[in-house]
């Protein structure tokens, strides 16, 4: 039985370390990602790796404070407080957002399904 909560905690640690390779190693090659801001998530692994790498490189630091972490079989839901600081502008879908030097503090919900190998097959982010 996969430990979905452990996978979620590893994912948060990988985001906090801004380590895109570590994030990708936790995803199944056919993982479905729904991140809320776009209705059309990336469908190929290389595009996803590039997007995650570009986004994480804009942060000076990110910190997740788990407020609730609920796991059952291969499913996990996390309610998190996020604090982060950008050291670069964020480029989203070709638009440059003036985030350099800005800090953010907000709540986010992550839901994930994890396979027998402990890798995420479906990830949903709500904020």
């Amino acid at each position, binding site marked *: 039985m996969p430990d979905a909560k452990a996978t979620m905690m590893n994912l948060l640690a990988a985001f906090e370390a801004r380590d895109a390779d570590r994030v990708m190693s936790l995803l199944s090659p056919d993982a479905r990602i729904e991140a809320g801001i776009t209705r059309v998530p990336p469908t190929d692994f290389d595009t996803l790796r590039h997007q995650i790498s570009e986004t994480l490189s804009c942060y000076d630091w990110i910190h997740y404070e788990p407020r*609730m972490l609920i796991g059952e079989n291969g499913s996990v839901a996390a309610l998190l407080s996020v604090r982060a600081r950008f050291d670069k502008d964020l480029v989203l879908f070709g638009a440059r957002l003036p985030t350099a030097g800005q800090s953010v503090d907000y709540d986010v919900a992550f839901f994930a399904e994890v396979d027998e190998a402990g890798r995420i097959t479906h990830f949903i982010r709500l*904020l």
Partner: protein
Amino acid sequence: MPDAISIVDSWIDAFEAGDLNRITDMLADNVTLETEMLRTAITGRNVLPGLMRDTLNAIESLRIDRQKIIASGRDVAVLARVRARFGKDLELYGESLQLAGKSLDILAALFVEVNAEGRISRITRVRDTFGIIEQLGIAPERIAAMKEKFERQRRAA
């Protein structure tokens, strides 16, 4: 041990039915509600009807499709697709929102704790804020203004 999933499921049913009495009857007296919009938690069952009545009255139809329900002990997380259609405009914290005839189709998450007596004691809601802004055409500045007025009222209460 109360069946936390059925309690939360019934509570969501009460929202779909627009039944404010049933919504509040299922809450603990000292319930806390936190949302993605507000820094201040709302505390107390008696406070909620006043906050929800106008919104529920403005909604013509509401469908909440549970996409995932994950539970452990008395904690439950729900991921739902929420589809609402507004039949009336809504006056909220001094802002008049032109919602009549508009529809909303977003994802929302609820994290709920149920107490030993089988009542809901803590609720945290996170919604797709971008979806709300985009679909209802509410400018972020108006959301910020409502948030500010709400926080001021709660501090004064």
